[in-house]
């Protein structure tokens, strides 16, 4: 479990990026981290992974559990960068590192640092992405292919924490579908995956929980089940004021809407609609999802 407490961060003193935020990321879930450009999504991921240090507050990570799934008392502060912690973290940045390695060399010289790395998983994921030749040099690959290699490697490391910053950016349509399959395959009860993305629709079927950042604060942090229990997503031909629509947009089939779900009707979460609705109804979202910050 990742616990973020009273976290503040700035690059320039007079311009806070994150201001006193609290949130929690539980194991066994895939989180979608959403927000407008420059709101601090990548910064938050960097702070959780220990790539940046908080100005105020702290991040505590507990990765060990006993046989009953209850947390042990060993917890990590990411900025300490302890080896045991790093062995359980994989971070895929939006841009990949520059490397002269071939895929094979990358595996050979990096995998040895990750005790749970599975060569079999790596090969399977590469196959899923239709990458057959491991002798290819990384620098000669296209941006998308290189990203697929890093995604495959990251998931094959079988770390308990996986941070993916815009993972579907640059992937072609079949690869996006492969990515979803691979993520679902790689997911276990022990892992926490946090995906920062603007391509909300690419990933909405794999996300278990949604975190939306807005101007230095967390606007929403809720599980998909809770969201669809409290909000209804669907298409209507007409809407009236009485429907209390939170967000609507034209759609070929009618009006795509988000409204409060009073009668516990079932619907499928539409992350993009949720995002827009949240920004238009901040106070209501705070009330509905009991966000403190």
């Amino acid at each position, binding site marked *: 479990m990742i616990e973020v407490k009273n976290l503040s961060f700035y690059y320039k003193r007079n311009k806070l990026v994150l201001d006193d935020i609290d949130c929690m990321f539980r194991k066994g879930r895939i989180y979608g981290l959403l927000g407008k450009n420059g709101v601090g999504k990548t910064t938050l991921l*960097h702070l959780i992974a220990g790539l940046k240090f908080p100005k105020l507050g702290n991040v505590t990570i507990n990765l060990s559990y006993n046989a009953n799934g209850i947390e042990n008392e060993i917890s990590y502060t990411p900025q300490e960068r302890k080896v045991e912690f790093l*062995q359980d973290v994989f971070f895929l940045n939006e841009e990949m590192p520059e490397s*002269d390695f071939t895929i094979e060399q990358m595996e050979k*010289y990096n995998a040895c*640092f*990750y005790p749970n790395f599975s060569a079999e998983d790596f090969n399977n994921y590469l196959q899923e992405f239709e990458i057959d030749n491991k002798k290819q040099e990384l620098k000669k690959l296209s941006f998308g292919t290189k990203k697929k290699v890093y995604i495959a490697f990251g998931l094959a490391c079988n770390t308990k924490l996986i941070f993916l910053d815009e993972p579907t950016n640059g992937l072609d349509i079949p690869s996006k579908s492969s990515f979803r399959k691979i993520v679902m395959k790689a997911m276990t009860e022990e892992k926490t995956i946090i995906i920062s993305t603007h391509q909300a629709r690419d990933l909405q079927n794999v996300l278990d929980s949604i975190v939306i950042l807005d101007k230095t604060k967390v606007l929403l942090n809720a599980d998909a089940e809770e969201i669809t229990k409290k909000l209804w997503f669907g298409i209507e031909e007409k809407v009236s004021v009485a429907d209390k629509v939170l967000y609507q947009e034209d759609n070929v089939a009618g009006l795509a809407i988000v409204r409060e779900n009073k009668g516990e009707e079932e619907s499928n979460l539409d992350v993009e609609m949720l995002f827009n609705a949240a920004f238009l109804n901040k106070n209501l979202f705070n009330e509905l999802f009991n966000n403190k910050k």
Partner: protein
Amino acid sequence: MFSFKRFLALLKRDLMINKYPLMGYMLIMAGVVAVMMVFTKIPLPTNSVINDVFTMFYLFFNIGCMIMACTYPFKSYDKKYNRAEMILLPASIEEKFAVNFVLAFILVPVIQFVSLFVGMEIGHLINWIRFDNYTLLYGYSLYDFSKYYNWVMVYVFMGFSFFGAVFFQKNKLIKTWAIVFGLMLLVSIGFAIFIVNMDYEAQSLRTFFNTTALKIVVQIAMHVVFVLCVVGAYFQLRKERS
């Protein structure tokens, strides 16, 4: 806990990443020295040729070490995304630091030595082909490697470079050596002003500057500076962030 296994894996990884730049550097260095050997020869009436081999070797060795110790270690931290990868690579700060220490203070001098030696031999060979009665005479020089403090001087210069390599992320060499030479200039000016303005009564100080006491002070200072550079680099690496 320091793991020797991880240290070796890191070292191997780094050498693999940098093998081509290192080989390129060695070739260039050897070539430059060979050319210098040919052009700085001093033919004597006895059909002999003098090269001030020791001075040239020492000079090139020192400059080469200075440059390489600044540009080669911590190379993986230069670019933003490589830096993030390196920071999160599962090895301790001490292991990562030790690898860069070995690269800077052991591998760099070895590479330097090998390239210079090869370059000089090529230079000799060219001279031998060009001159009928070629006999190489080594010119006299203060700078030979049998003197401990000549080594210390090389390592102090490398110490500055090593610190600059982790402290700066861009234009490391220029920034490091602009600062070091700037400081050296300031110290020299300050020292000159001190000497010029010295009272007649303080003549005994002049004697002090000529004694071995000063040498000892300087020698201790050199060791301290080297240690400070290395320790400073370690703490800088601890603070490294993406």
